C-alpha cells in the first residue's frame, strides 16, 4: 500500500510538472479557431482557471484556488484554449450571462465545471432575453447574452458540467438557460458546424420564457439553436449544422416553456428554411435526464438525423395554463429521420383539452421508433401522431392510466390537423400493453382507445387493450387496420382482415376475454430497480411485472402474428423470435421455457 501511495504521489508531482510545462499561455484576445472542421483528435493539456465570487479577485492569475478570479465578466473577457478548464466554486452564485470565448478540439474540449464542496455554483441570467423579434443576435444586449444564462455561439468542443443555471424574470421573454447557437456565415461556401458539445450533470431551474406555443416553444431550459446569419437572404435555407451533441444526466425543472429542445430563431420556419430531405443535427443523444414541470413541452427534437432519446424521466409537463401554453407533449420530434425514443418513463403530463400525451411523432417525423417506454398517468394519452409523420413504429411500450382526463379520454390520437399535410402514414403499432383506467363511473363507458383519423396504412397488431372499467374503441373517420390485438372489457372490438394462420374468412383475429396478466394496472415507479436485462433474463422486479402473461390459457399467449424486423426484444428484455408466433402485449415470455 505504501508503495502504491508513493507511486501515486510521485505520479501527481510528475503530472503537475508536466501540466505546467504544457500549459498554453493565456493570451487575452487570442482566437486561434482550433477545431474548425474537426476530424483529427488531439489531446492537449490546458490550464485550469478558478472563479470564486467571495474570495476571488479579477486581477489574480486565476490559476489556483488561492488566486481565483471573481467575476463572470472576467471569464467572458478571456479566450480559452483546448483543454482549459473553468471551475466555479461550489456554494457561489453569479448574476450575469456566461459567454466564454474560444474553442476546444476533438479530445480536448474546454470544460466548465465546479470545484470545492457543497451546493452547485449558481449562474443566474438575471432575466437575460433575446431582444427579437428580428431573430438575430444583433442588438447590444443580444450580443452580450443572446437571451440565455450560458451562451455558446459557433464554438465547438465544450463541456458544461455540474453547475446550476437559472434565468428568472417577472415578465415573459425570449429566454433560455443554456443556449448553444450555430449561425451560418453569409457568403460561406461551407456549412458552419458546431460539434463536440457535452452538457452533463447540470441543473436548470426557473427559466421564464414565453407561454405561447407559437412564440415560446423555443424558450426554456437547454437548447440547440439555429440562427440566420445577418445579411442573408430571407428565403435562404439554413446552412449550418450540429454534430456530436450529448445532453446527459441533467435536471431541468420548472420551465416556461420547454425543457430540452432543438429549435430556431423566430425568423426561420421549419418548413421553408430547412431542406426537408436534410437533417442538420447528427449524433444527438439526450439521455438520463430529469425534465419536470415544464409549462409546455419536456423534450423536443427537431431537424435531427437518428437522434437517440433514452432513459429520461419526463414528469408533470404541459403544466401551464392551457389557454396560454396551448399545445404540449412530454417528449416529441418534428422534422427528424430515424429518431429512437426508448427506456423513457413519462408521467403526469397535464391536459385539459389539448395534447398532453407522453409522446408525439409530429410533422415530418420519418421512420421514428418509440419502444420500451413506460408511460403512465399522462392525462392527454400515450401517443400522438401528427399529419405527415411517416413510418412510425410504436412497440413494446406499457401505457398505464393514460388519457384519464374527462375532457380528453384517449390513448392514441391521430391528429387531423394541419390539413395542408397528408395523414400520418405507415404507422406500425404493435405489442404494446395498454391499461385504460377511468376516473369516474359516468365516463367509463365512453373511454376510448384511440380517436381520429388513422389512415388505411396504419396497422395495429398484437396489442393488449385492458380496460379496467369497461369502454369502447372509438375510431371516428378512421380506416386503420386492426389484427391480432386483444381487448379486455370493451363493448366493441374492431374487425380484422382475414387471418394468416388459417382462421378462415370472417373470423376476427382480434380477441377478447381475460388475458390473464399478472396484475394489470399495478405498475408503480421504476426507481431503484433494474429493468431490462440484455441477455434476455428479466430483472425487472415487481413494479411493472403486472403486465406479464401468467398462463398458457391466456388468449394472448403465443397468439400474435409474426412481424418482420420486430426488434428482437420485448419490454422486459426477453427475446422475440423471428420465426415463432409472439404473444400479444409487451411481454413475450415463454411460459415453462426457463
Amino acid at each position, binding site marked *: 500500500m505504501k508503495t502504491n501511495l508513493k507511486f501515486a504521489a510521485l505520479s501527481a508531482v510528475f503530472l503537475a510538472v508536466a501540466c505546467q510545462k504544457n500549459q498554453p499561455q493565456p493570451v487575452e484576445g487570442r482566437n486561434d479557431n482550433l477545431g474548425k472542421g474537426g476530424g483529427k483528435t488531439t489531446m492537449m493539456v490546458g490550464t485550469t482557471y478558478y472563479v470564486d465570487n467571495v474570495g476571488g479577485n479579477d486581477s489574480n492569475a486565476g490559476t489556483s484556488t488561492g488566486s481565483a478570479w471573481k467575476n463572470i465578466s472576467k471569464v467572458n473577457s478571456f479566450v480559452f484554449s483546448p483543454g482549459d478548464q473553468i471551475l466555479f466554486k461550489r456554494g457561489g452564485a453569479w448574476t450575469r450571462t456566461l459567454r466564454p470565448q474560444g474553442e476546444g478540439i476533438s479530445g480536448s474540449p474546454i470544460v466548465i465545471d465546479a470545484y470545492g464542496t457543497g*451546493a452547485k455554483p449558481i449562474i*443566474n441570467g438575471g432575466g437575460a432575453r433575446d431582444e427579437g423579434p428580428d431573430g438575430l443576435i444583433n442588438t447590444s444586449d443580444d450580443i452580450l447574452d443572446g437571451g440565455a444564462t450560458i451562451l455558446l455561439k459557433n464554438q465547438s468542443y465544450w463541456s458544461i458540467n455540474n453547475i446550476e443555471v437559472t434565468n428568472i424574470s417577472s415578465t415573459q421573454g425570449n429566454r433560455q438557460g443554456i443556449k448553444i447557437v450555430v449561425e451560418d456565415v453569409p457568403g460561406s461556401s461551407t456549412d458552419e458546424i458546431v460539434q463536440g458539445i457535452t452538457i452533463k450533470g447540470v441543473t436548470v431551474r426557473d427559466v421564464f420564457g414565453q407561454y405561447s406555443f407559437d412564440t415560446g416553444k423555443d424558450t426554456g431550459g437547454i437548447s440547440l439553436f439555429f440562427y440566420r446569419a445577418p445579411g442573408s437572404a430571407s428565403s435562404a435555407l439554413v446552412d449550418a449544422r450540429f454534430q456530436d451533441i450529448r445532453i446527459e*444526466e441533467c435536471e431541468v425543472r420548472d420551465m416556461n416553456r420547454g425543457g430540452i429542445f432543438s429549435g430556431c430563431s423566430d425568423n426561420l420556419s421549419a418548413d421553408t428554411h430547412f431542406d426537408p430531405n436534410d437533417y442538420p443535427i447528427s449524433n444527438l443523444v439526450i439521455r438520463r435526464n430529469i425534465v419536470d414541470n415544464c409549462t409546455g413541452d419536456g423534450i423536443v427534437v427537431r431537424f435531427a438525423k437518428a437522434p437517440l432519446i433514452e432513459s429520461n424521466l419526463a414528469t408533470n409537463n404541459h403544466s401551464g395554463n392551457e389557454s396560454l401554453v396551448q399545445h404540449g407533449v412530454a417528449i416529441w420530434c418534428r422534422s427528424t429521420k430515424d429518431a429512437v425514443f426508448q427506456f*423513457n418513463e413519462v408521467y*403526469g403530463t397535464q391536459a385539459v383539452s389539448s395534447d398532453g400525451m407522453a409522446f408525439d411523432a409530429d410533422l415530418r417525423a420519418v421512420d421514428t421508433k418509440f419502444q420500451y417506454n413506460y408511460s403512465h398517468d399522462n392525462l392527454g394519452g400515450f401517443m400522438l401522431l401528427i399529419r405527415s409523420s411517416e413510418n412510425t413504429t410504436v412497440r413494446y411500450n406499457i401505457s398505464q392510466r393514460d388519457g384519464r382526463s374527462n375532457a380528453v379520454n384517449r390513448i392514441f390520437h391521430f391528429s387531423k390537423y394541419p390539413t395542408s399535410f397528408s395523414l400520418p402514414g405507415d404507422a406500425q403499432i404493435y405489442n404494446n400493453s395498454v391499461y385504460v383506467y377511468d*376516473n369516474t363511473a359516468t365516463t367509463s363507458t365512453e373511454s376510448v382507445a384511440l380517436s381520429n383519423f388513422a389512415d388505411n396504412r396504419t396497422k395495429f397488431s398484437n396489442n393488449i387493450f385492458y380496460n379496467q372499467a369497461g369502454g369502447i374503441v372509438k375510431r371516428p373517420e378512421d380506416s386503420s387496420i386492426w389484427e391480432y390485438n386483444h381487448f379486455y372489457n370493451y363493448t366493441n372490438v374492431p374487425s380484422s382482415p382475414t387471418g394468416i394462420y388459417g382462421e378462415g374468412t370472417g373470423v376476427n383475429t382480434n380477441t377478447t376475454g381475460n388475458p390473464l396478466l399478472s396484475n394489470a394496472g399495478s405498475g408503480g415507479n421504476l426507481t431503484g430497480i433494474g429493468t431490462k436485462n*440484455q441477455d434476455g433474463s428479466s430483472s425487472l422486479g415487481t413494479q411493472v411485472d403486472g403486465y406479464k402473461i401468467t398462463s398458457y390459457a391466456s388468449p394472448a399467449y403465443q397468439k400474435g402474428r409474426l412481424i418482420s424486423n420486430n426488434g428482437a426484444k420485448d419490454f422486459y428484455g426477453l427475446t422475440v423470435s423471428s420465426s415463432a408466433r409472439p404473444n400479444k402485449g409487451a411481454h413475450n415470455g415463454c411460459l415453462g421455457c426457463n
Partner: protein
Amino acid sequence: MMLVIRFIFLFYFFLLEIGQSDVVLIATVNGYPLHLKELQYEMSNQRTRVYAYFAAKCDLGETALDWTKRYHGEVPLEVLKKRALEQAVAIKVQQIEMKKHGIDVAINYEQFVRKYEEATLKRKEAIKNGDIVFGPPIYTAQNYFNYVFSNQLNALKVTLMDKKQMEDNSYQEWLNKKLSMAKVMVVTNKW
C-alpha cells in the same frame, strides 16, 4: 478493557452525531415529525429561486450575496428557511392525506431513508449487471424523494377523483383547504 470502553464511548458519540445530522426534529405537522433533512431538501430546491429574488431586488450583478445580511428589510437565509418550511409543511400534509387514503408512503424521514438506500442498492446492482435502467443512473436522496413523491401525488389524485372528493384540475383548491387546517408546531428555530 479501558480501550474497549473508550471505543464504546466513541461509537456512542459517533451514532449520536449521525443522529444529530440526520434526524433533528424541527417541527411537527398534524402530529407527524418534520426533520431537518426534509427542510434541507426544500432549501436546496428553493436556493436558486431565493438567490435570484435578491439578485433582482438588490440589483446585485456579480456582487456576492451575503446570506446572513439584511437587504431592504429581508435576510436571504431567513427567506430561504421560511419558504423551505412552507414547502415542507405542504408536503407533509399531502403525505398524511396519502396515508389516510391507503397509499404506501414513507411518512417519517427514517422510513424514507431506508427505502432510498434499498432502492439505491438495487439500482447499483442493476447497473453492475448491465441492465438498462430508466432515469438517471443513481438518484440523489433529494431527487429520489421528488420522484417518489410525485408518483404518490398522482396516486392521491386518482384516489380523490375515484372517491368523488375532487374534480379534474381542482387539486390545488382541495390542498389549500387541507393546508389551512394544518396544525404546525415548531420545535426549534435553531436550524
